[in-house]
């Protein structure tokens, strides 16, 4: 598969979304929690609490929607500031109860619009980056589809980042990159190659820790082993004192592009 094939696969509407993963992993134990307590409830972000085996977990996902109606309602997974603020509210809550945080990332990017700018899209992402870095509770991010730039990293300042084999993570969309580089967005496949955005590329660059085989909807065995893997990671990180964990998390990012 070429890099652009991966992009196409990551964007496929047939793909499992955050809600699918949450249902498969948490089942009946999941309780959705709503709202940022300031402005509203952004449906592009689905969040709540539930049990993963015997571990209470806060789970937050960027949700694209599973059919046309849902996709409209979820704004195709493009969150507004209130979505990122809802996520932060629940992450702070998780820290309070020393509950690990699991995030699912699947978005073309943070929404670009008048309301989003008026309500501080830049500020909401910046605040998440700063606060997540210092959270004294474990965070794990799993990229299940598209990882579009600032809108993706706003939920991915984690102890570990895992990617499905057909997920992508990029600073800019291949189309956007091609139109800047060659003034021709149809050269997106070439741009996708240059950007090094596949799970394999990111693993080689030391930006992610693990590449996962992608489950299908009824692949219970696969979900069971994914659950086990997540639980083991949480157990390991729950044993580390919060301050120490935050320091390790900072160093994880600190080493990327370190000059000395």
């Amino acid at each position, binding site marked *: 598969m070429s890099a652009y094939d991966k992009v196409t696969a990551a964007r496929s509407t047939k793909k499992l979304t955050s809600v699918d993963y949450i249902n498969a992993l948490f089942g009946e134990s999941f309780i959705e929690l709503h709202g940022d307590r300031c402005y509203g409830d952004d449906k592009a972000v689905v969040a709540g609490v539930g049990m993963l085996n015997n571990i209470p977990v806060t789970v937050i996902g960027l949700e694209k929607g599973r059919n046309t109606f849902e996709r409209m309602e979820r704004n195709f997974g493009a969150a507004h500031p209130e979505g990122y603020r809802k996520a932060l509210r629940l992450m702070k809550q998780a820290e309070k109860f020393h509950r690990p945080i699991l995030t699912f990332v699947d978005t073309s990017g*943070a929404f*670009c*619009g*008048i309301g*989003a*700018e*008026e*309500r*501080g*899209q*830049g*500020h909401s*992402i*910046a*605040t998440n*980056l*700063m*606060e997540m*870095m*210092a959270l004294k509770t474990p965070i794990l991010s799993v990229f299940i589809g598209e990882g579009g*730039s*600032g809108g993706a*990293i*706003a939920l991915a*300042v984690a102890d570990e980042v895992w990617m499905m084999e057909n997920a992508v*993570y*990029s*600073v*800019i969309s291949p189309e956007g*990159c091609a139109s*800047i*580089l060659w003034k021709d967005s149809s050269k997106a496949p070439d741009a996708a190659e*240059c*950007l*090094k*955005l596949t799970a394999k*590329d*990111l693993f080689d*660059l030391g*930006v992610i820790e693990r590449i996962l085989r992608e489950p299908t909807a009824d692949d219970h065995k696969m979900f069971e082993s994914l659950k086990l893997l997540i639980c083991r990671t949480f157990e390991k990180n729950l044993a580390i004192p919060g301050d120490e964990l935050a320091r390790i*998390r*900072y160093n994880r*990012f*600190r080493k*990327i*592009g*370190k*000059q000395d």
Partner: protein
Amino acid sequence: MDLFTFIKPKNELENSDDTDTKKPYVPDEMWEKCPECGTLLLTTDIEENLRVCSKCNHHFRLNARQRVDMIADKDTFVEMDKDFESANIIDFPFYDEKLEKSKKQSNEKESVICGTCKLGGIETVIVSMNSEFMMGSMGTVTGDKITRAFEYATEQRLPIIVFTVSGGARMQEGILSLMQMAKTSGAVKMHSDAGLLYITVLTDPTTGGVTASFAMEGDIILAEPKALIAFAGPRVIEQTIRQKLPKDFQTAEFLKQKGFVDKVVDRRYLKETLKHLLKIHNYGED
């Protein structure tokens, strides 16, 4: 201190139409046209007025060194990490050429300079981004220099002042540029948790990944008049929503009205304002 008590700068040209006839011997290269009001201004007069148009108050863009010269006490700036240079890490097309060209054009090695200086006698760390180097885009070296400046400020218990100007994360370094958003934010957080003061000065234009990281993380966020400050630039938004944007959308004044900027400060009062803020936070002269 405020625009309400605005004093006319001393060298204001009372009638721009006269300037050509009154000073006929000045060669062309010594004139600059204000992009906002079209007035022809003497370069020396602009310089003296901190590169603000004396007719309409338009703030001309400054490069990173001009910024530092404007803010730091004379001969007090000591640059850190000045030899750090970007490399084409992911082998991105045309990036080597682009870097070479930017270095020549700007006479700088990266899109940011960092260091320490005295501001009205008060010791501070200063970070100044440069629109002349790849439009102030943030690559790994930019991110690393800024991170190190914050770490140094934290260690030395110094305040930090950051002048932002940026087109966002640098696509030529792919995901590694994006990671700098998290890295710089982590360094800001540690500085903040140590109880130290961080002042941001947003200048024209500040957009993308810089807006969505350290630019919006200051304890106090100042901005220059009319500066464009955005997450997504106006062109991107117009393409996404296919409608015209309101007038003054994403200006410094607009962000202040929406609650994201503490104060819009005329450049000619900026040093005074910064010094005042440092003093209020108990940073004193040696």
